[in-house]
């Protein structure tokens, strides 16, 4: 394993673990940003430049800010919680460990992961654009429709209802 992969892995995992265990929600969101940044670095190392920068732009530039706004808008209605974890946390942890064990066993025993990597791969933006407009034009249009629906839906769900008493 190269040193850069190890650093990226440590940063991403540390960010992810911090994001799900910290008590202060804003710290969780900021640790999540660290995890996203680590993942973007991993994508860049895997020669997927467009996806790496799209990850930064969308996840760090939009989703993280969305999470932070939601944290700020849902505070203050309840007394500060002494517990961060739910009463059923041992079961959750056991299930997650079982999933991890199964995945690790599958990876260790698989043939596909034993193959050595290919030579240089190239994924220029032009190729991605060509593919999006020829082979993948239907998913592109459906995605556009999906985003419109999600935009309108999110605004309607979160909007304050005028005239109706709460």
């Amino acid at each position, binding site marked *: 394993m190269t040193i850069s992969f190890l650093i990226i892995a440590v940063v991403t995992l540390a960010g992810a673990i911090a994001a799900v265990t910290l008590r202060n929600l804003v710290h969780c969101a900021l640790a999540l940003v660290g995890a996203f940044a680590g993942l973007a670095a991993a994508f860049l190392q895997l020669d997927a430049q467009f*996806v790496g920068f799209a990850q930064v732009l969308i996840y760090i530039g939009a989703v993280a800010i969305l999470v932070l706004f939601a944290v700020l808008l849902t505070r203050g209605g309840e007394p500060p919680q002494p517990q961060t974890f739910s009463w059923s946390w041992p079961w959750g942890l056991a299930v997650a460990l079982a999933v991890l064990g199964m995945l690790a066993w599958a990876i260790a025993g698989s043939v596909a992961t034993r193959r050595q990597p290919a030579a240089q791969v190239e994924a220029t933006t032009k190729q991605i654009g060509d593919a999006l407009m020829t082979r993948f034009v239907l998913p592109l249009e459906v995605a556009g429709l999906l985003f419109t629906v*999600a935009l309108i839906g999110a605004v309607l769900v979160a909007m304050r209802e005028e005239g109706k008493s709460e």
Partner: protein
Amino acid sequence: MTPLAGYVLLAALLFSVGLVGALTRRNAIVVLIGIELMLNAANLNFIAFWRFGEHPEALTGILFVLFSIGVAAAEAAVGLALVIAIYRHYRTANVDEMDALKG
């Protein structure tokens, strides 16, 4: 361990961390954070298999991940809007207390 196995193992670890977050935390927003981590782990898996697998010139992994990032962002937006709406009703974002089907 080949590089591919390393990346896939990292993705598996990220997925289980996200699963722990989604299953054990009380706050709805942290559950959504866990879900985002799981989606990101799957994206890492796709890119790793695209890079080290067969036919990388078909760009299937990259395009799948692009759509996945977009859909995950849309889903986060709607999910957080729901959390805000629920907070307005229940005055709490604690998932353990949202246990009644009647509004």
